[in-house]
């Protein structure tokens, strides 16, 4: 029982980062009908910014974190402006290819400019700290990540439900053309969606980098895949579902890690994907039903 509880806590900590990324992917899918494979590059850029300011400039983590956040938001807006704006209205396939192009381009730029080596930077002192409660070992960073994700979710829900920004975004997600006829400015609403997605990725990046302490050209790839997977599990376009998907994915990984025989632990990801494929046979719409599959 203690083992199960321990795995649940560890899994929620891991899954919270997936949830934040899945949220951003769901927001972009909502307004652009596109799975954004360039979303992971926000983590990659953030990682190199972290390396630059922490190692090269000697900043402390508390000072670096806001800059990491700004870098993710700025990169998200830049990607929209440089790449996606020009293919808006094109077929889904074109937009998908564009997101792949951005993904590989950013990766290549980092290989050319920073090299392919792993760039390490120190993690915050408290990242490894553990609170022992009876037989439970609760990592401080897990508690912080879970808390931050809950707050971010609440703020995001407020933004989407109670502000003009959110109403415009939801209207555009429901029916873009009708929203434009009602006075919603398309450029603005899409830019705002990318700002929101970038902000969510920025928060995820801060915690992800606090755990990993490394930058390399493919840093964002694994979290991107997990984020997309979580968004799909939750029901693409459904924000609540994206969060549930992320948490479920994180908990599944940790549970399998502790339940699988040691010889099979290496295929944890494979087992997770197999289970997800099985899940979709019975529930192809994902965890939560999305009427139009496009709603934010």
């Amino acid at each position, binding site marked *: 029982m203690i083992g199960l509880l321990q795995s649940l806590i*560890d899994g929620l900590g891991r899954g919270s980062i997936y949830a934040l990324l899945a949220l951003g992917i769901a927001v972009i899918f909502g307004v652009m009908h596109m799975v954004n494979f360039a979303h992971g590059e926000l983590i990659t850029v953030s990682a190199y910014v972290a390396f630059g300011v922490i190692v090269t400039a000697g900043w402390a983590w508390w000072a670096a974190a806001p800059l990491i956040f700004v870098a993710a938001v700025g990169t998200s807006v830049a990607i929209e402006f440089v790449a996606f704006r020009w293919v808006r209205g094109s077929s889904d396939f074109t937009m998908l290819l564009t997101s792949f192009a951005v993904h590989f381009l950013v990766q290549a730029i980092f290989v050319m400019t920073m090299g392919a080596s792993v760039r390490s930077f120190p993690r915050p002192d408290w990242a490894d700290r553990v609170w022992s409660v009876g037989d439970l070992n609760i990592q401080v960073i897990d508690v912080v990540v879970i808390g931050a994700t809950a707050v971010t979710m609440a703020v995001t829900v407020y933004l989407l439900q109670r502000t003009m920004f959110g109403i415009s975004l939801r209207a555009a997600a429901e029916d873009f053309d009708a929203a434009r006829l009602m006075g919603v400015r398309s450029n603005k609403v899409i830019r705002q969606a990318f700002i929101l997605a970038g902000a969510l990725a920025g928060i995820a990046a801060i915690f992800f980098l606090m755990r990993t302490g490394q930058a390399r*050209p493919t840093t964002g790839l694994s979290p991107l895949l997990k984020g997309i997977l979580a968004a799909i599990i939750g029901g693409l376009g459904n924000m609540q579902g994206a969060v549930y998907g992320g948490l479920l994915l994180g908990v599944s990984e940790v549970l399998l890690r502790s339940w699988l025989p040691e010889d099979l632990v290496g295929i944890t990801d494979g087992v997770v994907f197999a289970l997800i494929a099985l899940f979709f046979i019975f529930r192809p719409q994902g965890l939560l039903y999305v009427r139009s599959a496009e709603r934010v």
Partner: protein
Amino acid sequence: MRITKLLVASLAVLALVAAACGDDEDDAAEAPATTTAAPAVEEEPMAEEEPMAEEEPMAEEEPMAEEEMAMEMSFDVDAALDADLDNCAAAPTGDPFIIGFAADLSEVGGFADIPISEAGGYYVSLINCAGGVGGHPVAFIIEDVQGDPEVSQRATADLLDAGAHVILGPPFADTGDAVLQTVNASRAVIFVASTEPVLPDPSIYSFMTTFSDTQQAEAAAEFAIDNGITRAITFSSEGPYFGYNPETFAAKFEELGGELVLDVSYVPFEDFDFASHANEVAGVADGTEILYTAMIAPQLDALRGAIEERGIDSITYFGADAFGVSGITVIDNNEGVYWTDHGFGTDGNRYERLNDGLAAMGMPSEAPGFAALAGDAITVAIQGFIDAGSTDPLAIAEAISQLTGVEAVTDTIGYAGTDGTPDTPVYILQIVNGETTLAARMQ
């Protein structure tokens, strides 16, 4: 409007036809992969002096005969490293000795081959500055294999077409195999940074520049036993490097009388939440163990932090050569960590001079060990050229297989009587008081 389109289309077609009919030599001149060659080569275009028949590729069919070679062929590593690029000797005027590098500059192997390419280019420029090799300039041609076996074959073919006398190879077995297949034992292939035990094979002139994974893992086990450690924990993953090293370490450790108390699986590069792994370690460890793994430095940092938070803070941490290039000196929690590496820079030795020279040129190597290996591989190729007394690639390959005691950059290297893995030592380094120190040199 239609006429304009028609005109543009016609021009495009004409341009394509013109390009297709263009002179191949132009292509060769325009697509030089990165090349470091002596100025003399550029100044004296070959075609003007001795027009070659079209069907006669340069390198393969006109190896320099022994009598054409410079009479006093020798190579002094120290003289090259001491060369002043602002004040070079007279440019060598002989035909170039060409070293081709099938380099993996992608995000897969670039961690090794980008620093090797930079250091190799610099080292060759020093050699040419010091007068070349017996009056022959050295050319260093790089083709990117992009981490892809199919591209590797094309890149290697390009290097062969360019007349490379010796090929330097990429770090991993998949692309390395592709290089070997393309070369097809027609000349020596020297793998610069690879530690893959499956690659060397003297029967096809396939050589490594440094120790194999078997050697580095066994050296770590011997070092641990020599230092009185009898209990070990390994962190491993399926696969050649991250799995093979811990497995080999464990086998040797147990053979020498030690006990493997736990092997924990992890995912290289991806796992950073080591809570459950650390719980497993805390369940069996008493603090006297050595924890051996081939994981990269940031992962070890996270793992060690998680283990120490559970009250186990006296374990000895030991890694493979990936540590040295993944930020071991940057991470906070690195004190006391050991790892195996390819050399050690100290007291103005060659390793240090090569890396200091790179830094002085404004391109400090992010992987000093790999930079030094670039020097080793080029030195070996040159020594093979000297011993062969010819640019015949097969004669050079044969000469390399017989080399002994070559004074290279990291140490001495020899291949005679080996399986293609050189008899070079394994350096065991340790962080002490925040500085990298030499803990042992295991032959």
